[in-house]
């Protein structure tokens, strides 16, 4: 990533359809050679943002800059930006070779050069020997690769990927994540990737942009976003979080669940109400008398590597991930290290997330399936 070269800038972008705001004052810059992910749930505006960079949407207000130049009204075919579409959008009347050669033929590239470049691209996406195959007979993963080859063959400066892995099964998805990452490194092209899958975003990106309700909630590296979420939405969307109401007594001292803890955050007003985030893996279960808090175990689920334990503490359900077994119905003590506590300012999302009282794995999976068919 080249921090000195901003390849794309979005300035004060807003957009609404039929009076419904889809994007609300988006500010974003993307560096050359960056792998940037737009992450968020259905309808958060991530795809609209991507389509604006691709040239398929125009902002109501604000500017899209490409290498410092305003490109709001530049049509898609004149932008040095290519897209891998959600369902690939391969041309069914052309075979693999002709699909990949499509943009080169439009540019009237000489035949030998086309052949050379297409062969090289098919090698990059591991589809050598598939030249004459009909695209409609390929598997999802193979179609995906053709789409990537087609989008990369004319060497765009930016590649846009709109949930490209959404339709693949889990195993293939993991493989393609690795491959996309290595293709990005090998080509040095800026990738802007849209997904609602937080794991995908964490494992692939240089930078993650978390979006919700048409606004950017946080921009940062994967570790920043995970360790220092800015508000309850980000904390809940990225990974698992227990989010409780707290009061910042003074610097490095916070009270929640009836106990005052030491923490590592400062800079809040005296007695300011805050949101407190504690990740499930950072909570320790200890004997009742040694605990800072006491609670009752209401459910235990074996997850393979660890147990997922729900503990009721003063009516608030905490999720704890631990490799030690504890039995359901047991009363236990809870111990939290100072650096496991992360303090956030109150936001509009306060109180909406972070309680596991209605938690169940099935619900989580269902909501993922639903959101795959969005946009």
């Amino acid at each position: 990533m080249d921090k000195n070269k901003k390849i794309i800038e979005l300035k004060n972008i807003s957009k609404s359809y039929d009076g419904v705001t889809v994007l609300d004052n988006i500010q974003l810059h993307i560096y050359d050679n960056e792998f940037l992910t737009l992450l968020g749930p259905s309808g958060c505006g991530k795809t609209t943002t991507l389509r604006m960079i691709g040239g398929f949407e125009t902002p109501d207000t604000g500017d899209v800059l490409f290498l410092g130049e305003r490109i709001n009204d530049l049509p898609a075919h004149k932008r040095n930006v290519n897209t891998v579409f959600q369902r690939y959008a391969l041309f069914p009347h052309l075979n693999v070779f002709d699909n990949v050669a499509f943009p080169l033929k439009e540019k009237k590239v000489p035949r030998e050069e086309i052949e050379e470049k297409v062969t090289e691209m098919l090698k990059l996406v591991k589809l050598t020997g598939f030249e004459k195959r009909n695209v409609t007979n390929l598997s999802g993963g193979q179609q995906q690769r053709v789409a990537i080859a087609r989008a990369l063959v004319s060497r765009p400066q930016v590649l846009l990927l709109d949930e490209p892995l959404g339709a693949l099964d889990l195993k293939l998805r993991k493989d393609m994540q690795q491959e996309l990452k290595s293709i990005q490194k090998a080509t040095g092209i800026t990738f802007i990737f849209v997904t609602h899958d937080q794991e995908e975003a964490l494992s692939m990106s240089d930078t993650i942009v978390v979006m919700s309700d048409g606004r950017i909630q946080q921009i940062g590296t994967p570790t920043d976003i995970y360790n220092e979420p800015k508000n309850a939405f980000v904390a809940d969307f990225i990974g698992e979080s227990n989010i409780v109401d707290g009061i910042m007594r003074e610097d490095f001292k916070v009270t929640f669940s009836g106990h005052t803890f030491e923490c590592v955050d400062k800079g809040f007003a005296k007695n300011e109400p805050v949101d407190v985030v504690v990740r499930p893996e950072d909570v320790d279960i200890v004997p009742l008398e040694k605990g800072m808090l006491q609670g009752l175990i209401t459910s235990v689920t074996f997850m393979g590597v660890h147990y997922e334990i729900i503990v009721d503490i003063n009516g608030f359900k905490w999720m704890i991930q631990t490799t030690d077994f504890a039995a359901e119905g047991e009363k236990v003590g809870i111990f939290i290290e100072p650096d496991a506590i992360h303090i956030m300012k109150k936001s509009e999302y306060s109180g909406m997330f972070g309680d596991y009282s209605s938690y169940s794995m099935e619900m989580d999976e269902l909501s993922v399936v639903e959101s795959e068919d969005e946009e």
Partner: protein
Amino acid sequence: MKGHRNSVTRMALAPYSVWALLFILVPLVFVAYYAFTDNNMHFTLDNITKFFTAKSTVTGDNGETLQVRTYMVIFWRSVKLAVISTIVCLLMGYPIAYIIARARPKVQKTIITLIMIPMWMNFLIRTYAWMTILQDTGLLNNLLANLHLGRMHIIGTESAVVIGMVYDYLPYMILPIYSIMAKLDTRLLEAAHDLGCNNISTLRRVVFPLSLPGVVSGVTMVLIPSISTFYISQKLGNGKFFLIGDAIEGQYVANNLHFAAAIAFILMVILLIAMALMKRYTDSRVAGGV
């Protein structure tokens, strides 16, 4: 189990099979039978050879008398007018279908209904309507005269016949192309733009190849009825452009059933061959696609 299922399927299909047999196959067999028999129902090839050899005398442009093969002249004239009509229908129908398919769903429905409404009227009446429009003192010429553009002589020309055919058969070109275009995935168009195509090259490289199946069925549905059409030429061509359909009608009216059947039979064979060739060509063009 499988045998049982098959017999159920067959029984369910029985009414349609009977219908197809009675109303499609049997008439065709009769046409073929009549084509190869004489008035005494004896086998003969005379009717067929008559079509290719019958001659008549016409007066040429310079007043000289010419011997021509009557039915070959009529046949080629029919082919020519039908091909011209089909081309005009395609040139008009394709953009119309494209525009409809890109319109909002509500607008699409309205336009399709408007296109269908004339089809609810008998085509004889529609042809009569065109007579009043195209006559030397008809609507069109009066309009032209009022605009001081001068009158045009249209009725009784080949153009009038083509206008009549295009009017009658245009919906059969628009509808199949529209139905293919309406199903066209808009993401393919976005992909084409994304990969550097402007509107024209998107149309040429993506929309047109993918709409070919619609074009083929549109062309078939216009070409075949317009080759065998009758009456339009009599009314709008003032009887000067006798077409193969008119010839068949004329022979039936004159009670020459066997010769009428022979012309119909020959026309059918020629059309079948033409369709087979066209299908082969387009199959190779859209191989595997769509």
